[in-house]
């Protein structure tokens, strides 16, 4: 088997998953990356690797060579570049919701700092593909257990020091050094002897760790074994470097303003705690010439106050629109033009507990589906920020099932009531106490839940109490299968029904299933579909699975959520993925500023 096509090798995937597990980057993130690299069949394998049960043999392919993706500089090939004249001052303003704890991603990847300060060996593009960054190319030995990264010679730290292989060697060893006590050091355990060194087992020292700068621009990583996915790790924010001289001089405080030396496209120029963070372009960064923005200003503004700040022209991008402001935004001649609606690629649905009355009766579950008026929820309650859901996979995705299955989903209170005939609940009576539980997650899901509760009360006579809890507490109880009626969403990680149908509803994961519904036929359909090579056949299988779910009332799908943001008209070239969706900076894709241009205004 070609170790470079790591996404086809169950063993490799298992190891990669272990790395992700070490940093608690959840399974979805892992699958997302695998999906981006190797597509659906890789995901099926990955699932097996992280505790799934898909029985698919990867074909021993030998066609391509790593790394995935070319060596073309990103930022130079944007589709739909800026129209109009550029502003003289290329300043972009967007808020932080809380003050970061530091910008030291090398020490704590969840420090909440500014990702644009650092550059890894590789970077993710808008489609989550790994592209070169500080390393212009990389290669591996035969079995992918030794990786050699060739660094650019033209990239500099913000103080003018050249960015060298020694920086990465030192930084990764810093993260692994037990004295550093970096919480997510497990991320680098693929490096040889990294784990025992980090855990102070045996007599391993820094020098035993399998990362070595053989010269200033060549970094050799000797791994514990074959790891075809290693470039994915090297592009992730946890693999960011730290500036040795600054760390040695300032210790924990090395990312404070005045101390911070960084190697990314931007450098820290100001950080007044709890007030503002200002970064400016690092002219020494290799791709600086292709970056238009000169300066990014990030005031610390809590989410409740950020729309006010946007309207007062203090920030250019307000990424979390509130449902309660939507109507005004839409009616405002100016704001309505700045509104950007975007698909959240998810599904909100009700998951009834199959072991708890009244949901142990199939007719009850089917009746509920007919008793909920999805169009009203989407158009009136959510004011159009969503689309009615009939099946699990959201629209805009490959494998979206356009069939509405009206025989199971049409809003028909009469039919709903007639379904109850012959059950203990005939005539909408004798209901046991029912509690609908959700996590605290903003106004839209709450309003939708209230509407659903009312519809079920009105049409079926159910009396449902509404419980909103803290995120962790609710998820804990849900995975222990303690919730009677769970109002929950699933956000898509990678574009395949495998994600929405297999990962969410498959019932035989050894690590525990998300839902209480278990159905042999369904499990077989979705696990077989993952390995199916014929695309049409594969989709057909998912559609059969869709119908099966509806027939059994596994879940009651209600809506696919959208959200809106506000973007000033002078911000151009906002990153978009292949589907044309906006991609703001987040955990994996962190290079939004590199693309943006500010028009004259």
């Amino acid at each position: 088997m070609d170790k470079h096509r790591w996404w086809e090798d169950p063993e490799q995937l298992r190891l990669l998953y272990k790395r992700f597990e070490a940093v608690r980057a959840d399974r979805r993130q892992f699958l997302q990356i695998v999906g981006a690299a190797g597509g659906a069949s890789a995901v099926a394998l990955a699932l097996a690797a992280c505790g799934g049960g898909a029985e698919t043999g990867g074909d021993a392919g030998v066609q391509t060579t790593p790394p995935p993706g070319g060596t073309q500089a990103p930022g130079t090939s944007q589709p739909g570049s800026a129209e109009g004249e550029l502003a003289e001052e290329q300043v972009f303003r967007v808020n932080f919701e809380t003050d970061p704890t530091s910008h030291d991603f090398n020490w704590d990847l969840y420090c909440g700092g500014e990702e644009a300060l650092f550059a890894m060996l590789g970077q993710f593009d808008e489609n989550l593909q790994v592209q070169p960054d500080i390393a212009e190319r990389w290669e591996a030995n035969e079995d992918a257990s030794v990786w050699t990264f060739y660094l650019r010679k033209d990239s500099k730290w913000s103080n003018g020091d050249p960015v060298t292989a020694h920086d990465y060697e030192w930084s990764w060893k810093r993260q692994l050094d037990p004295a550093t006590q970096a919480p997510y050091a497990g991320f680098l355990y693929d490096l040889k002897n990294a784990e025992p060194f980090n855990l102070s087992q045996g007599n391993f020292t820094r020098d035993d760790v399998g990362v070595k700068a053989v010269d200033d621009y060549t970094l050799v990583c000797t791994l514990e074994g074959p790891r075809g996915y290693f470039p994915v790790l090297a592009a992730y924010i946890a693999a960011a470097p730290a500036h040795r001289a600054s760390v040695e001089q300032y210790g924990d405080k090395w990312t404070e303003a005045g101390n911070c030396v960084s190697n990314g496209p931007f450098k820290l120029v100001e950080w007044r705690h709890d007030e503002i963070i200002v970064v400016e372009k690092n002219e020494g960064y290799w791709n600086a010439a292709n970056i238009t923005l000169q300066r990014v200003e990030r005031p610390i503004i809590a989410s409740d106050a950020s729309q006010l700040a946007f309207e007062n022209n203090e920030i250019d991008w307000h990424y979390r629109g509130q449902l309660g402001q939507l109507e005004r935004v839409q009616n405002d001649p100016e704001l309505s033009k700045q509104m950007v609606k975007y698909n959240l690629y998810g599904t909100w649905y009700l998951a009834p507990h199959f072991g708890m009355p009244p949901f142990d009766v199939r007719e009850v579950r089917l009746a509920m589906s007919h008793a909920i008026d999805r169009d009203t929820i989407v158009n009136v309650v959510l004011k159009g920020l969503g689309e009615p859901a009939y099946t699990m996979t959201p629209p805009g995705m490959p494998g979206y099932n356009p069939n509405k299955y009206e025989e199971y989903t049409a809003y028909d209170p009469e039919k709903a009531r007639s379904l109850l005939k012959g059950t203990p609940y005939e005539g909408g009576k004798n209901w046991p106490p029912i509690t609908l539980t959700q996590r605290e997650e903003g106004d839209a899901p709450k309003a939708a839940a209230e509407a659903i509760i009312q519809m079920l009360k009105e049409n079926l006579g159910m009396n449902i109490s509404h419980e909103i809890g803290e995120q962790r507490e609710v998820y804990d109880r849900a995975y222990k299968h303690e919730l009677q009626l769970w109002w929950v969403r699933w956000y898509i990680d990678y574009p395949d029904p495998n994600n929405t149908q297999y990962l969410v509803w498959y019932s035989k994961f050894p690590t525990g299933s998300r839902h209480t519904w278990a159905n042999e036929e369904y499990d077989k359909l979705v696990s077989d579909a993952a390995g199916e090579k014929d695309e049409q056949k594969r989709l057909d299988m998912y559609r059969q699975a869709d119908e099966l779910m509806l027939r059994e009332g596994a879940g009651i799908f209600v809506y696919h959520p959208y959200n809106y943001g506000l973007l000033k008209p002078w911000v151009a070239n906002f990153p978009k993925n292949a589907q044309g969706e906006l991609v703001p900076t987040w955990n994996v894709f962190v290079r939004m500023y590199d693309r943006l241009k500010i028009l004259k205004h």
Partner: protein
Amino acid sequence: MDVLRSHREERLAATTADRAGLTLGSLARPHRTLWRDAWHRLIANRLALAGGIVVVLIALMAIFAPLIAPYPYDKPNYSAVSQFPNRDFPMGTDLTGRDVLSRMIYGAQVSMLVGLGAQVIVFLIGVPIGALSGYTAGKVDTILMRFVEVMYAFPQLLFVILIMAALGRGLQNIFIAIGVTGWVTIARLTRAEFLSIREKDYIQAARAAGASPWRLITRHMLPNALTPIIVALTFGVPEAIFTEAGLSFIGVGINPPRPSWGQMVGEYYIYLQSYWYLALFPAIAIALLMMSFTFFGNGLRDALDPRMQQR
């Protein structure tokens, strides 16, 4: 203090402090107790009467909410979503078309319970401790004040979250959390008043006349210390109402769709630009409740104040 003066003041105190009931009653009316007398004075005070009536009305509104409210509090009406106040919906409707007026009427239930209930706890704990401390003013005072000082030094918000995190969600726990953190202010206030009052001549006089400590405290000192206590309790009402609202944010409050005034304000205040009326009406209701309580409290104090009848 010379004998003559103290003698004079004893007589003075006997007339003023030992209750109008005696003098007034013996002069004009047949036998009357202090409280009955106070009651008559209370209803003669128009502002206090109005305040009392409003408080009672709000309480009745809370009790009979299902009968009064024109619409149910939890039933959305999708043909009338987020309407501005109009003829059908005098206070408008919220984002799911629920009538704000009806929700306000039902919201009185939780808000009255939290607002007044917590004050009852505060009063029951705070006043006895403060009174005892201020009355004795010796070793007991020192010990009690150490205790109060420790309790007092806890920032309220943090301590309420702490208690709620330990006890879990629910209306009764909100009472406890607010009550346990709120009584200290009242205790300190009561003590300060008592310290000041106990030096007053009429108390000295009553004491010299052999009044028992219990009688001294309940009959002589407490009524005179009541003013600031009532004012403080009045302020406690909206404070408790908003604490309840704040707890709902964190996920330890009461669950929807049951409305409360504080929650209605807390939920909709960020939409002030879009729907001003959503937060405005419950805020007015809270203000009204507080103001009524203040007027009623002032009237009550006046009624209990024996000197008042001399004017």
